[in-house]
């Protein structure tokens, strides 16, 4: 049975990646799972300079979800290359470096620095972090900015280029189309939804940044609808993200149009979750006579007479 997937110039051994910011740089979770069973690892967002991140409190549990405002805490590009990349490079899985920045120049600088490093198969561009003041969501909620970033980065790499979209917009399909037009190999979605929690005893926001990003099982229905919407809008592959906890969840994302998926918050409950999901998907395919998992991608059966919802603009 074939579970592999070619995305741009990158070959994934299966459809299951771990999501940026939820799996560190691979080494931390290594004792708890077999990293070679993953299709790929998307690193914590890397920026040019190290970022200390936001003050505590950075996370808050909500019902079937969690809020985070980590603030892109990361070691910065130099330390990433010297301290983190050697470990990642040696793994038998694809490495996708997620890049965050507060200006187009910073994105370009980080990517150009990484271009000369071996052992990186692709980039995922975080234009959509809700938890930093400059850049972040401001890029991701403006179609023209998303377009410019994609254009500038595409010029500079032949590695696989994935743009990670925010769900916090009215028409996500427009953003995906902009990425496709500018030559992105894929879009990944969704990043977190803007959310908030209040401590009624102190009457203060729980998070030091007031609002944060909502992730986990709570957001899965929203993520599925967004992937479905983007699938109707573009022809480039989609990487589905949002609340995926079981292999059944992953199959749902494939059916609505995702070519691959990322496991985020679920790794906090179980660092072995992504590997288990990959195994579960294989068993499902074997049991249902699916010889190539690609058969499932976009395989949603829409009963006759049912029109796509109004908000979906068809190509």
């Amino acid at each position, binding site marked *: 049975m074939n579970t592999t997937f070619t995305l741009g110039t990158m070959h994934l051994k299966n459809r299951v990646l771990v999501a940026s910011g939820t799996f560190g740089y691979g080494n931390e979770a290594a004792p708890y799972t077999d990293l070679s069973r993953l299709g790929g690892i998307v690193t914590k967002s890397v920026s040019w300079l190290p970022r200390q991140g936001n003050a505590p409190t950075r*996370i808050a549990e909500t019902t079937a979800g969690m809020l985070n405002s980590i603030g892109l805490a990361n070691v910065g590009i130099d330390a990433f290359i010297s301290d983190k990349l050697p470990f990642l490079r040696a793994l038998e899985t694809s490495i996708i470096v997620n890049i965050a920045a507060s200006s187009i120049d910073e994105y370009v600088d980080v990517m150009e620095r990484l271009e000369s490093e071996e052992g990186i198969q692709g980039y995922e561009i975080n234009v959509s972090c809700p938890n930093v003041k400059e850049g972040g969501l401001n890029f991701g909620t403006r179609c023209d900015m998303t377009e410019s970033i994609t254009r500038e980065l595409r010029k500079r790499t032949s590695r696989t280029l994935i743009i990670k979209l925010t769900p916090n917009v009215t028409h996500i399909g427009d953003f995906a189309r902009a990425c496709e037009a500018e030559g992105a190999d894929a879009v990944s979605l969704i990043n977190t939804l803007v959310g908030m929690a209040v401590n009624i005893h102190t009457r203060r926001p729980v998070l030091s940044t007031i609002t944060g990003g909502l992730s986990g099982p709570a957001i899965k229905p929203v993520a599925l609808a967004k992937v479905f919407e983007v699938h109707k809008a573009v022809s480039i592959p989609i990487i589905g993200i949002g609340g995926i906890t079981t292999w059944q969840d992953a199959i749902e994302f494939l059916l609505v149009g995702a070519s691959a998926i990322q496991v985020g918050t679920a790794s906090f409950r179980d660092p072995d979750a992504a590997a288990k999901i990959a195994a579960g998907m294989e068993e499902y395919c074997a049991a249902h006579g699916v010889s190539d998992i690609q058969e499932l991608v976009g395989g949603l059966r829409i009963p006759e007479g049912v029109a796509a919802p109004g908000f979906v603009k068809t190509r």
Partner: protein
Amino acid sequence: MPVINADLRVTANDLIAEETWTLRFHSPELAAQLRPGQFLNILTSANVDPLLRRPYSISNVVGDECEIMYSLVGKGTHALSQKIPGDTIGVLGPLGNTFGYEKSFGTAIIIAGGIGVAPFPFLTRELQQREIPLITFLGARNSARVVSRGLANLHVATDDGSEGFHGNVIAALSAYLDDHRVENPMIFACGPNPMLKAAQAFALDRGIACELSLESEMACGIGICQGCPVERHQGERKFALVCTEGPCFDSNDILFQEQQHA
């Protein structure tokens, strides 16, 4: 020794004081590895409410069994309190660093506030095995909440004066040290942040070495979420992660902010 991420069998779950429980589970592997100060990240419920694991200090190890101690607070501890022998719980660990009980000092001064007593039965045993003298100061809301088992040389302070010293545990310690000579002491403290802050100030003032076992919101417990920072006093890194660099810190390393977010 391999790390553990498994469903383990509960062997006991008992109410030992007001709203305070101990839970034991069977795990020869963990029993062999765990050291005082470390913690486990526990899935209190098979369904996703609550979603995240909860960290608990290892409270003791008895043969092939490990024990945690918890007080009833919210969803997670409510779910824990429902477990009966024969049920399983998901346990991830061992996690975090240990108390510096192998450092060189003369007498260990243990300061525990509320459920902060949890890690100390285990530490007490290790100290006693090494024949290191120790004194324990335990603060509790009232007499019904005093958990003395596994502790040694115990001095109790209660907020309402229903047992021992009437007042907070740092005041009790301070009074004690005014009257007694303790050779080359080192403090090990665990409890609510205001108590830890007081312990920090006290230790600094008296020039006593001091380790604090800290809490923080945690999503993962293994360093992959960056959710559990504590602010550092100095150095180029502003934050340390409680889960991988702690939970035990030299008290001089920690900067307690005015509690902005509780």
